[in-house]
């Protein structure tokens, strides 16, 4: 199921046989991606998982045309994004990309103006921009009273949410986030992911989350793409990918702790379903078994 050929229309955004190498012509030449193909579906949350250095950030920067693959193509709604260079700026509003540690890119004097930077560049009217700023702040769960503060006075988690709102305000059809929760505490992480779910649920956009945490992926991703050392090793729905536990472990990627616990219980004779990856689901299933008197 890796690198299957695509029906391009099935995906809003997809990549075919991407190859990317850094530092060509220098002694620091380094292959970052080798023959990677995958697709993102509308209205779904896709997780891209892999160890540090596996090429995740490189991959997402190709999805909105910031990097051009040395070979391979990226299609947005079935169209090659590099076919006409003049369409790239417009594409970047449709495929929104939030970089890792986006709070380091804040620059305006108020939160409101910083969030407005993207939509203003789109050439929207002032009222439309103002509306989008408030809407984006609501999606990420930023309190209205924060809008007129300086972004540099906020806490780390709040800054992160301001930066994400800055991209959401462009109302992208595909929202891509590079490690959106890294370096945050559990509550901060939860806030971020819930904001993303809200955005997906109310706009039907596709959301792509890059992460190296299996737990987060198990919790939020519906489709998963697994990268390891510049190659794509698995892709598919969450259940499909996690059913290849051996392969994941062979790439030292591991399955979520709770899935491992479920597997052990299953081996011990407990008739648990195969697709349990979150603590809540598993707890419910065990409770049901207990109530049913199977144990």
């Amino acid at each position: 199921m890796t690198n299957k050929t695509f029906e391009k229309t099935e995906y809003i955004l997809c990549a075919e046989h991407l190859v990317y190498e850094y530092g060509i012509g220098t002694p620091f030449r380094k292959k970052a991606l080798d023959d990677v193909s995958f697709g993102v579906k509308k209205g779904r949350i896709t997780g891209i998982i892999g160890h540090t250095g596996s090429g995740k950030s490189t991959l997402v920067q190709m999805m909105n045309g910031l990097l051009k693959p040395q070979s391979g193509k990226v299609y947005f709604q079935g169209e090659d994004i590099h076919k006409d260079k003049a369409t790239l700026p417009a594409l970047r509003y449709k495929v929104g990309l939030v970089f890792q540690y986006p709070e380091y890119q804040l620059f305006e004097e108020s939160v409101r103006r910083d969030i407005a930077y993207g939509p203003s560049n789109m050439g929207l009217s002032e009222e439309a921009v103002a509306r989008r700023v408030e809407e984006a702040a609501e999606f990420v769960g930023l309190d209205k009273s924060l809008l007129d503060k300086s972004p540099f006075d906020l806490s780390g988690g709040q800054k992160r949410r301001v930066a994400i709102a800055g991209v959401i305000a462009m109302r992208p059809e595909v929202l891509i986030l590079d490690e959106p929760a890294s370096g945050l505490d559990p509550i901060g992480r939860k806030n971020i992911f819930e904001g993303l779910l809200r955005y997906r649920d109310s706009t039907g956009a596709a959301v792509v989350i890059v992460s190296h945490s299996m737990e987060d992926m198990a919790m939020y991703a519906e489709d998963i793409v697994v990268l390891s050392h510049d190659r794509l090793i698995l892709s598919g729905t969450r259940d499909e990918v996690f059913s290849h536990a051996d392969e994941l472990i062979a790439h030292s990627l591991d399955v979520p702790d709770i899935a491992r616990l479920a597997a052990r219980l299953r081996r011990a004779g407990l008739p648990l379903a195969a697709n349990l990856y979150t603590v809540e689901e598993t707890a419910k299933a065990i409770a049901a078994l207990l109530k049913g008197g199977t144990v």
Partner: protein
Amino acid sequence: MIKDITLGQYFPGDSFLHRLDPRMKIVLSMLFIVMIFLASSLVSLLAVTVLTFLLPFVGKIPMKTVFGAIKPLRWVVLIMMVLFLFTGGGEGYHILWEFHWQFINLVISVEGILKAIAVSVRIVILVVSVSVILSYTTSPIALADGIESLLSPLKRLRVPVHDFAMMITIAMRFIPILIEETDKIMSAQTARGADFHSGSLVKRAKALIPVFIPLFVSSVRHADNLATAMECRLYRGGNNRTRMRSLCYATRDLLALFAMGLLLVGIILLTAEVTYGYLGFRYV
């Protein structure tokens, strides 16, 4: 984008040049510069040019990289060319073309053309030789150590040599980091619709504000973190500090100095009165 700048970049390796003592390399590159300016006859300049382009082979630096360092010079060279080409007047010159109108005196002469070429060649070989002897084959840290060591006699005059060298080291250490950050911030703002490449000059300058402010904030953050880290390790300047890797001259350093001396004498002879009569024009 910005990362393509190769000038002033260390190229790790294990060549003869790489292994020379940084102090010796600083001295050698100064001598090389002297040599370039002493080579004022056509033949000796040609000889220095050939020597310069042999250096990358000694240092095992790919020619492509060397040409990359020259490329940004093309405008300087062009301006020099034009300047010298049209001001080639002088006593006994072979004049090819003249134009005089009010204060404007344009003269093209054989000697002028030669001078224009010579100046351009000098600029190019100056950059290539210093790049290869110092930047490409010396790590920034070694370079700063070398500078500190060479300047250490000034400590007697209460010049804060150590602090000066430390500042250079830190600055050099952070250049690649800041370049990388600039690149990242520019990409991130491009993803939000920033456009750095089109529009009027004012518009383009304005487009850089979203890059410079985060860059400035992050520089201050780096400085703050570094200061804290140094404080935590009780750093307090140069007094009684020893080094992990102390500099020490080896036979090859003497060898290199000796070779450089021979070359210098050779070039002086090639340029000298006795030879240029046979070998070429004096006027370059």
